[in-house]
């Protein structure tokens, strides 16, 4: 079992050195006073050695099992989606606390195995649903729970950007590695926000444009257990509004899905309140610098390890969106493509 080394804070390993590690996790970890990066792991030797040299990380490993010989307290798992569950479970069994990137896993069965292992080994399992750290989202959840909008009527989530992540290979687009397309990659965030704010789903209808690969566009019509219905649309090919609108009898909230912008429109009030959700300490009338949610996520994870408390997004929270996504893929229908005559079908069977 790893030991908590107080001297330089927690010893953290970064497992998987793709784009999200290089551009998000590593810079945030290096700024964090409560930990030090003890090792980088990636199957691509030249890449991991190059990153380790650049950021002066002592250990550059090509197999995560080599971490067992080091004194590592915690790990961030940012591997292809299909490896989230097996690698996380192995690390937890060795007493290494894990923050696993979203989606937590590809199936509910995998999520349950991860949750069970964390419980049995008394280790922390946190899920990288980074948007839970946006203050605007925290405000939305509170306002809805306090009934500010009155009886809820509907929701409308639209998230789309023309895809622009720097990719070195087609690995990201391979079904066996990614588990799916835009729904499991971006949609997992939007669905998590929906379920977190408004509660779990009772039924849905899911359509996407996958013809045997991974989808680039999809739409889910969802009915929640509360009876409220709405839509979640996600795209890799189009620029959409990138906000969620939640309508109630007394008004509506519109909130940015990827930052702290928020608007409140109350019934009978001719104007709206629009601005930025900030910390309570922020002086009135001033703009707050953009919160770095990934730093907040790391801080929460490290603190939960140090204080042996549950993280903000524990395994059972990460499991919620995976359950819905798994069901969506199981019951998928073809997305109607308005400029193609008729509903296209694949010659042969859909994989």
């Amino acid at each position, binding site marked *: 079992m790893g030991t908590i080394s107080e001297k330089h804070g927690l010893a953290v390993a970064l497992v998987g050195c793709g784009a999200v590690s290089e551009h998000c996790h590593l810079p945030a970890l290096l700024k964090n006073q409560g930990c030090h990066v003890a090792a980088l792991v990636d199957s691509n030797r030249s890449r991991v050695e190059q990153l380790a040299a650049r950021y002066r990380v002592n250990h550059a490993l090509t197999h995560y099992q080599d971490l067992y010989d080091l004194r590592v307290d915690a790990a961030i798992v940012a591997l292809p989606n299909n490896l989230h569950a097996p690698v996380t479970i192995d690390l937890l069994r060795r007493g290494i606390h894990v923050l696993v990137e979203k989606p937590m896993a590809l199936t509910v069965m995998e999520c349950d195995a991860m949750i069970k292992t964390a419980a049995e080994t008394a280790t922390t399992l946190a899920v990288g649903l980074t948007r839970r750290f946006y203050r605007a989202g925290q405000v939305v959840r509170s306002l809805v729970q306090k009934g500010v909008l009155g009886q809820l009527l509907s929701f409308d989530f639209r998230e*789309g950007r023309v*895809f622009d992540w720097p990719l070195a290979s087609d690995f990201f687009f391979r079904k066996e590695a990614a588990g799916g397309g835009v729904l499991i990659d971006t949609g997992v965030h939007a669905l998590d926000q929906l379920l977190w704010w408004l509660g779990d789903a009772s039924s849905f209808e899911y359509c996407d444009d996958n013809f045997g690969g991974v989808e680039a566009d999809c739409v889910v019509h969802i009915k929640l257990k509360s009876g409220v219905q709405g839509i979640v649309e996600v795209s*890799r090919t189009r620029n959409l509004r990138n906000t969620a609108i939640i309508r109630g009898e007394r008004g509506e909230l519109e909130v940015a899905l990827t930052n702290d912008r928020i608007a409140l429109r109350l019934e009978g009030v001719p104007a709206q309140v629009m601005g930025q959700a900030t910390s309570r300490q922020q002086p009135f009338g001033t703009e707050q610098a953009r919160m770095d949610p990934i730093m907040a996520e790391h801080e929460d994870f490290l603190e939960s390890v140090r204080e042996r408390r549950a993280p903000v997004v524990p395994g059972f929270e990460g499991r919620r969106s995976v359950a819905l996504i798994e069901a969506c893929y199981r019951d998928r229908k073809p997305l109607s493509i308005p400029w193609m005559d008729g509903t296209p079908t694949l010659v042969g069977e859909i994989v």
Partner: protein
Amino acid sequence: MMLEGKLVLVTGGTGAIGGRLVEKLVLEQGARVRVLVRNFMHASRLARFPLEMIGGDLADPAAVNKAVQGCDVVFHCAYDFSGNAVLQRKSGIDGTRYLCEAALLNNVARLVHVSTFAVYSPMSSGVLTEESRRGKAPNSYVSVKRESERLVLSHHGKKGLPVVIIQPTLVYGPRSSHWTLGLAQQLKTGVVPLVDGGNGFCNAVYIDDVVDSLILGAIRPDVIGETFLISAAEPITWKAFYEALEAALHVKSTVIMPEDRLREEVAKSQRKPNPVAPLLQAARHPEVYPQLVSLPVARHLLQALRRGLSDERWNALKASVLMTEDTAVLTAAEVEAKAKPLHLPDKSLLALYLTKTHVSISKARERLGYQPKFDLERGMDLTTRFLRWANVA
């Protein structure tokens, strides 16, 4: 030859034509598709299909050879507009050469090369056929396309490479970057001047017709070594084309401009920018102007100028500052209209606007069995649906 079960390589698969071709090859032809992908960032739409993506650049002969290995058919749709003229030549001409050599080496049964009707530039009014003469190339795009055609044909003539060249006219439709999304952007943001009442001939073709002609180029017997112009059944006018796009976008952004005035504007836009122009433009804003002229320093300056200048000169100065002959300050709407950029055609487009070229598709009809299915109404209906879906309209 049918394409079902055949291994087919597409270059330019992340573009509009290549992307639509991939869709049709998988969904309608049942081909096994491989795509040479330079930048996976743009591969989201390709990834929807069960196909093979090979990472690599056309300018890298090893990558090209790897991509062609085992293929029955190659569709060469790639063209890189992103670099400068030198880079365009490198990927356009060298890439085509590597592809032809790899196709020969791998005994490819057919190479379909996507060119353009612009190789016949500068065009004159009247019927344009595959026999029409080619004058001096007006730009590097045309010269690269001509040079790649020559390469493809010489590999056919000297080494027996089975090639077909397709020369589409102006390709519009879903995802067409220039003739749909680019023009939509211009119409949404500015003013687009048309000349000659917009009555010049616009030889536009809906993307699906082009893609169908590429597939015919691959499967039709007795067309090896041939070149085919591909367009809609009949040309339309530029006015009709732009009006259809304006209707799709719910805007009215075209203006008819006399040819001499348009040439003057084009010449003006090519002159060195006036460094004071942005300041003057800012000063013209209806909210800024009254505040500006109420400043003491501005008031003194204006009074001094008014005293010192003749009435004629004073009015001329005022007109040049306010961009109006009228002495009144512009209304907000007028300022907004004037603030919209004028999207001027370049020399090649101006030439297209002015000529009444009728692209003949007789050869493609007779030899290739090409039957255009989309007239402007049907093509623009589908284009409109795409623009709405894509959040452009």
